[in-house]
């Protein structure tokens, strides 16, 4: 069945514009050459068929990907010394094949949703694989205003692109891949939504109970506790405002506020503030001992997104990590790793390595362990009339030690359901600096995804 007549769109071929098409071909050749060109639309008629609109009770989709990486290893960096203590490497090549599947089944006001990912990787060090259920939950919606869910679900609270200090039950995302799916936590959730006229247009209250038991959310925090996280969303005077809270014995109590607002048709601002009560921190003292201190901490994020007339989107974010380490504290840790290497090489004793490894897992080794960072991403939409081609440049700078990562990339989505990404990440900084001590000094990545 056809809903509209077969329609003809004359003039879609124009030999005068062949140089633009030639430019596209060159870029595609540079990008890959792995994918055969999509068929050209022979006749200029466009139709709408019934099967395109039919809703299915059970749906399944996802993508397969191949990801090739070449990494230049900074052999004397702290992370490399801890990770490759006995078998140092100077380069590392890895090929990863992944399959991400998601599905849903819907019956009137109830549904079941799931998301899983399987990965198999082969690199110079060996084979690894994993199969994880990221999400699997059931929802019930007695009305448009009320929604309840139970199961494993991923939470993405906060307005920031790179970081979310108010993401109290979020998994930490990778600022270089902020759109990747993340594993959720088992939770029971209830949500109430109200829309109304006036300055306060929308109100939504979300409350989630997050248990931590043996084999349930073990990596969330202290076991055998029920935790409560809540978010009150307001759309007030065209501004998104979230007020967030977390309480429970698996993690310390914390409160937060975030907001986002469009200033004009091409300018957006956003921000987050989070307050952590009695937040513990393990610190390496100057005499080599450990000190565990507890105190209230505040983290914040402020960001903008700006679109120029020539389609350059700029995202800039400043992040203050209230539980992060100062430049001096980070230096002390890096010196400890150097001393651990010297001791290990001269005597074979690994005691300092063990201490450094312990410090790394307790905070110094986590991503963005420093105190103040700047994130900037510039992406240009379809330059030179190359449709679906987006070059971008992302940089993250540790504002205290001036070390940084810079990541140019090219993405192409012109073949229906294919996504091609070529990315180079360079990490640099002086000795004993955040990015100067990372495992990689450079990383080249080529990723091909096919969606179905």
């Amino acid at each position: 069945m056809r809903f509209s007549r077969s329609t003809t769109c004359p003039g879609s071929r124009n030999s005068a514009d062949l140089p633009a098409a030639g430019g596209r071909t060159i870029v595609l050749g540079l990008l890959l050459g792995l994918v055969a060109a999509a068929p050209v639309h022979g006749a200029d008629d466009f139709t709408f068929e019934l099967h395109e609109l039919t809703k299915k009770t059970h749906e399944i989709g996802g993508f397969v990907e191949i990801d090739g990486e070449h990494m230049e290893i900074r052999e004397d960096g702290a992370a490399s010394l801890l990770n490759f203590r006995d078998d140092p490497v100077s380069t590392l090549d890895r090929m990863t094949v992944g399959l991400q599947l998601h599905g849903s089944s819907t019956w009137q006001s109830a549904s079941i949703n799931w998301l899983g990912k399987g990965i198999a990787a082969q690199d110079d060090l060996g084979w690894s694989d994993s199969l994880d259920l990221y999400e699997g939950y059931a929802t019930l919606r007695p009305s448009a205003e009320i929604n309840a869910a139970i199961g494993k679900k991923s939470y993405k609270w906060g307005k920031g692109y790179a970081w979310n200090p108010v993401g109290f039950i979020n998994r930490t995302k990778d600022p270089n891949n902020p759109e990747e799916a993340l594993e959720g936590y088992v939770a029971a959730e209830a949500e109430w939504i109200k829309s109304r006229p006036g300055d306060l247009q929308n109100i939504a209250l979300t409350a989630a109970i997050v248990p931590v038991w043996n084999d349930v959310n073990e990596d969330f925090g202290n076991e055998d506790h029920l935790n409560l996280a809540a978010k009150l969303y307001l759309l007030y005077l065209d501004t998104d405002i979230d007020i967030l809270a977390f309480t429970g014995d698996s993690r310390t109590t914390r409160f937060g506020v975030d907001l986002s607002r469009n200033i004009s048709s091409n300018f957006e601002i956003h921000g987050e503030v989070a307050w952590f009560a009695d937040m513990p921190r393990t610190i390496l003292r100057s005499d080599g001992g450990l000190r565990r201190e507890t105190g209230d901490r505040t983290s914040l994020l402020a960001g903008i997104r700006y679109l120029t007339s020539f389609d350059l989107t700029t995202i800039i974010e400043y992040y203050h990590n209230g539980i992060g380490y100062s430049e001096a504290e980070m230096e002390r840790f890096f010196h400890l790793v150097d001393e651990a290497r010297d001791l290990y090489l001269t005597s074979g004793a690994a005691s300092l390595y063990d201490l450094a490894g312990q410090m790394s897992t307790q905070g110094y080794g986590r991503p963005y362990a420093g105190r103040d960072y700047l994130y900037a991403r510039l992406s240009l939409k379809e330059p030179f009339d190359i449709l679906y081609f987006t070059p971008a440049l992302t940089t993250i700078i540790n504002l205290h030690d001036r070390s940084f990562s810079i990541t140019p990339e090219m993405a192409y989505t012109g073949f229906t359901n294919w996504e091609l990404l070529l990315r180079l990440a360079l990490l640099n900084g002086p000795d004993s600096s955040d990015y100067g001590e990372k495992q990689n000094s450079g990383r080249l990545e080529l990723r091909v995804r096919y969606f179905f």
Partner: protein
Amino acid sequence: MKRVVLACVLMLLPLVWAPPAPALDGTAILLQVDRKMQPESYEMYRKLINVEPDGKTKEYVLYTVKKGQDKMVALFLSPASEKGRATLRLGDNMWLYIPNVGKPIRITSLQSVIGGVFNNSDILNLDYSVEYTVQNIKEDGDRYHLELKARNATVAYDSLKMEVDSKTMLPLTIECHAASGMLIKTLRYSKIEDFGDGIVRPSMLETDSPLHKGYKSVMIFARLASKEFADEIFTLNYLPRVEELR
């Protein structure tokens, strides 16, 4: 004789001294155009097709619902790489929900969630009378020529020049201009169809831009029907569940 002359003068008077024609009410005409194009609250399906200079195409299918003057949601049904993405508009506010990202992010009207000539404001277009005021109107045969001015800075185009068929009260072409006066794109409506329930309107919209020579985008409309929705559907929290409205 005098009476005859007086009668003739009185009969001829309207011919030589006709009262002025009533002035055209541009606002009323724009409101008529809006109501002819779609009911205030409705659901519909759209196919967006980007056409490249070499004839290569890429298609997107969207399910769209709208309520009142300023509430609208569009959900991508295909291709698979875009499926599940949803955009919400509440007045001047716009958000994009990407399933993997899992949270709505604010977008602006001049951005484009797809490639091609259509931007977000073309995909989430409210009634013209909501976003623009009529600054000038002229009648030329069976055409009205309206000059529209954006009501505020968050509207994507600073001004529009709209050509309307005075018999059907349907738009024919719309030129979209930046504040500098530069022509950003031209929209052309065609293929008038009967969608049922008295909705007779163009089923196709083509657009091209001097900024993207040789490229064009096409929008085909289907299953446009009047329908009422709860206000709560047009909220960030409902975006992951828009599919359930179909």
